[in-house]
């Protein structure tokens, strides 16, 4: 499967409707495709291009800029070890090396069973909880080498499946904003003075007129 399934295509249309111009939905739709397939396939990018009205090359151009979009298959879980300054100071780099030994792969690689992709990542905004790790972007704070082994074990056995969804799935709660509920989305050319601004400007002009 690579193109959107009917359910996701309908969701994609709802997402596109939230933006003044369809191309703005490129990144949200790439996320949706990655959630469906686990990585971003060429067919999915072609489908995104059809939906937002640009060429597949433009979608590839955008997607290839962002680290979270995987243009090749990755493990079911991405294990991201932060080694930036706050984590480095408290053993982040040693933790990454420990993970490399435990998993038998270098950072950037995927285990032969296709379960875990290990990444050496930049700051993930958990600096006071160093060293910090994410599994499919779910946070684990103040991780010791033993904790990390336990985390890897939990991912492999499925014990953490409820807390850590498969790669590609981000927020489990979505913004519920159907098209008929949108207040004021249209191409910028079609927008005018907002009503509350017009009312206050008219009132100010009337006040000035009375004053004069």
């Amino acid at each position, binding site marked *: 499967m690579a193109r959107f399934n009917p359910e996701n295509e309908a969701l994609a249309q709802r997402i596109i409707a*939230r933006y*003044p*111009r369809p*191309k*703005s*939905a490129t*990144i949200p739709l*790439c*996320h949706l495709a990655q959630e469906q397939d686990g990585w971003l396939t060429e067919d999915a990018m072609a489908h995104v291009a059809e939906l937002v009205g640009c060429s597949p090359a433009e979608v590839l*151009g*955008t997607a290839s*800029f*962002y*680290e*979270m979009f995987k243009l090749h298959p990755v493990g079911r879980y991405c294990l*991201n070890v932060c*080694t*930036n*300054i706050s984590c*480095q*100071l408290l053993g982040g780099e040693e933790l990454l090396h420990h993970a490399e030994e435990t998993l038998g792969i270098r950072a950037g690689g995927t285990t032969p069973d296709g379960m875990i992709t290990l990444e050496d990542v*930049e*700051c*993930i*905004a*958990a*600096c*006071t*909880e*160093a060293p910090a790790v*994410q599994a499919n*972007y*779910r*946070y*684990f*704070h103040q991780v010791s080498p033993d904790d990390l082994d336990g*985390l890897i074990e939990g991912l492999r056995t499925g014990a*953490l499946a409820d*807390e850590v969804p498969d790669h590609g799935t981000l*927020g*489990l*709660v979505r*913004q*519920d*904003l159907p098209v008929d*509920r*949108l*207040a*004021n*989305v249209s191409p*910028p050319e079609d*927008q*005018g*003075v*907002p*009503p*509350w601004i017009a009312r*206050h400007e008219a*009132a*100010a002009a009337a006040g000035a007129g009375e004053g004069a």
Partner: protein
Amino acid sequence: MTDADTTTTTTSATAEVPRIVSSRFDAEGGHTLDGYRSTGSYSGYEGLRAALDMAPGAVTGFVKDATLLGRGGAGFPAGVKWGFCPPGVWPRYIVVNGDESEPGTYKDRLLMERDPHQLIEGCLIAAYAIGAAEVFLYVRGEMPHAQERIAAALNEAYDANLVGRNILGTDFSVDIVLTWGAGAYIVGEETALIESLEGNRGMPRLKPPYFPAAKGLYLYPTVVNNVETLSNLPWLFTHGVDEYCAVGTESSPGTRLIALSGHVKRPGVYEVPQGTTTFRELFYDERYGGGIRDDNELKMFIPGGASAPWFFAEQLDLPLEGRPVGAAGSMLGSGAVVAMDHTTDAVRACLRLVRFFARESCGKCTPCREGTTWEEKILQRILDGHGRPSDLDLLLDVADNISPGPYPVAADPGQGLEAVPFPPRQTTICPLGPSSVAPITSAIRRFRHEFDAKITRRDSIPVTAETVAGVDEGASAHV
């Protein structure tokens, strides 16, 4: 097992210092609409009601009067920024920068996870003031928990007629759309953020225009504000300008969320009044850091994120305020303070910071794309023991090509509110490249001997007549 809600948010409040943005961090259910109304240091959505009773221009004036400084890094007054929208040009957009990724910075994630309604109310007040057609809430891709909390809060707010059509029965209507990023530090730069929202590669735009308020999203006026900046608005509109200005200093009122990390005993996120707390208090006071770990000696510290030049023991008594920190040659930036004790290897720390900028350079400007890559290579070979005696001059020369002249340049306190010179001295479109220079100049100026020690190690490999003779002797003995 995931640590969604277990972070030490040891924010400190005392009788004289109110919690302005962090009052619901530890409140049970503070992230829900009911919790937002019933807990914290003000009642939720009352600030919006107060703002809706004012004329939009008066709301902007109110924010100007409070001197609400941007909390994203540059410290620009928010009300002044709003006022840069050219009159009579419609539509206008608001983009909320929730792409927090400056190394050491950890505050916007907490604000989004623990008090999403506070941020939404802030967005609404700003949207009413400038007359926004739509608000885009751009949350970093790697933060699914924040995405969930904001999505749930927006769904509640739409159901309660607080967002959407005819908000609270008035003619004020606006949509707030949650958008996820996808992993790119540079998207925190406001024009890159706008490019990303247009569905493009997140590369900063050529300047001028310096402010997207003139030409932003789809080339229409756009205000880009940081999460913490907007999160200040509900308290401000509930309590008023006078109470707000009673906290902090005259030129920098209110509080800042400071993420204190590194080698301190009690790392945590603290809400501190601007300008009255010093770095020494932050590191050593029991209310905050509680001292350096193992009572070690402080070697250096970063006062405002990876982009900020380092400070040392002699700067400990500076207050946490943009202007004096800027005058001393660094910046308070995004409120990220990282303490490093005497066991820290300055070269290794410097390399890690520079590597970050090399990895995150978008590649648009040659001095940054090539320069940061070379900075990383040179530092790596020095650390690996393969450095050449000429490498430090080479490193400084590469740095000078990205950010010419003496850097950092201490801002003149008489010039205004900017904490760092604006626009900064740079050969690049945005400050990412010049930011990579900060750790290099900081480390080399202070710890040149540490670099030299690593470099001379290679030069001192003994190749003398004596050792050659010794080898010969051994060889002949073996035969």
